């Protein structure tokens, strides 16, 4: 059985700021990042959907520690975002000084962009990752 969305396709779409997920036709749950099955009911009756990329920050950490070869990215803020369609995804946060991030970040509305991790000797190539930024003001207009 083949994946409906493999990483290669997810990555290609994310590089165009499009976030691919899978909507379960049995229970309605949206799975993102994609898996073989619905992350809630394990069903396989899913269709590929493009998600809004909007959501709210659930938690965060600003990291001063990084892996070999990635020290120049520090400090970096990692966020877990709940997308409006339900799933949680991990990304980074722009628009804010990582050193000034605090608990007030939780609940903030954010929208999707991306940046490409070029890969290192162990990563089997590049990988785009979601980079979020605040959208509250834009939506309030």
């Amino acid at each position, binding site marked *: 059985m083949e994946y409906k969305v493999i990483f290669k396709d997810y990555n290609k779409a994310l590089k165009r700021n499009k976030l691919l997920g899978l909507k379960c036709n049995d229970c309605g749950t949206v799975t993102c990042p994609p898996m073989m099955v619905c992350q809630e009911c394990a069903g396989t009756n899913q269709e590929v959907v493009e998600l809004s990329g909007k959501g709210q920050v*659930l938690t965060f950490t600003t990291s001063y*520690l990084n*892996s070999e070869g990635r020290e120049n990215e520090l400090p970096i803020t990692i966020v877990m975002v709940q997308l409006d369609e339900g799933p949680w995804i991990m990304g980074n946060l722009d628009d804010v000084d990582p050193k000034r991030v605090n608990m007030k970040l939780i609940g903030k509305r954010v929208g999707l962009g991306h940046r490409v991790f070029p890969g290192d000797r162990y990563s089997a190539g590049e990988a785009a990752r979601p980079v979020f930024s605040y959208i509250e003001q834009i939506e309030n207009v």
Partner: protein
Amino acid sequence: MRRVVVLGGGHSKFCFNSPKTSVEMLSEVAMDAIRESSLEARDIQAINVGNVLGDFAEGQGMVQSFFANDIGCFNVPATRFEGACASGSIALRDAFIWVASGYYDIVLVGGVERATAMGTALATRTFAMFGDSRYEFPTGFTFPAAFGLLAHLYAHRYRIPLERLKEQMAAVSVQSHEYAMKNPHAQIHKQLSKEEVLKSFMVTTPIQLHDACPFSDGAAAVVLASEEVAKKLTNQPVYISGIGQTSSGKLSSQYQYLPRLRARELAAEQAYRMAGLTPQDIDVCELHDCFSIAAIIAAEGLGLFEFGTAGEAWERGETRLGGKIPINMSGGLKAKGHPIGATGVSQAYELTRQLRGQLVEQGRQVDEAKHALMDTLGGDGVLVSIIFSAA
């Protein structure tokens, strides 16, 4: 299914920059375990080994066969288990199943790691391999970062001001350092104050250096035997009375359940059910405190405290010797050290000694302990609970 006994054990001093190779560390503790069991190498029928990063640390894969040969377990089937920081625990659980099933009577379980040989940057990179490499590592994800995310989520979920949670987390680290002072095998023998924890280097908010366990080198081993065999060898049998193991996927896929780890709760449930016990029956516990917040989340997931309250329990001393449930009398991963392939076996070694009453002289013996629980977390996705019982 037959009853299974933990016989002898061996445990190296955990340390930075071990002068010994992984094969040497593992061979030494394995021989200690075999001798303490009143056995010879030729009595061992199979070997299970937890080892995670020998390939990166020493360019040494398949450590299990080389050490087996070194100790005279010639041509004995030896298998390496990899489940990140729970590798030793899954090696132990699997060995239990082989002996319980009747296929083997005597199995040696070991674990070893020499992580400090990699240096901090490569060690951090390789430890991050136990998160999702495609969807999460690109963000800069590391394991400290995972627990930074969980700590903020925990503070928000249970409405604990972050400054209060930080104090509770500090209490966990302070206690671990205190008991490690009494454990001759511990990597860190140094008193730690709350102020020192809160002043230490910020690793990834809100995790500071002293909220985190060190990188470690070390090894541990135990011998498992069927009850029938064990009766001839020991008059102090410690039984494995319950086992549980589960897996889970990348952090984001565990979504709504976080900051609780559902996989841990299910593994513990398996072990409690098998042993016919409840959390109230546990007299002493070794749990996976890779970070101070991880200890708090673990103690709640194991049913030892209500959700959102374990930090206060540490502050009140309920996790101390003589408290409601003594936790990490070894010094825990924080101060005993965390050579990841060895950690689960080290926990088993420690609890076996607790149940035999062998830690009185070290000043960290839980009086009349009958049932002991170990909990190990590997990466994003391996959870093991094992219960040991004195009868």
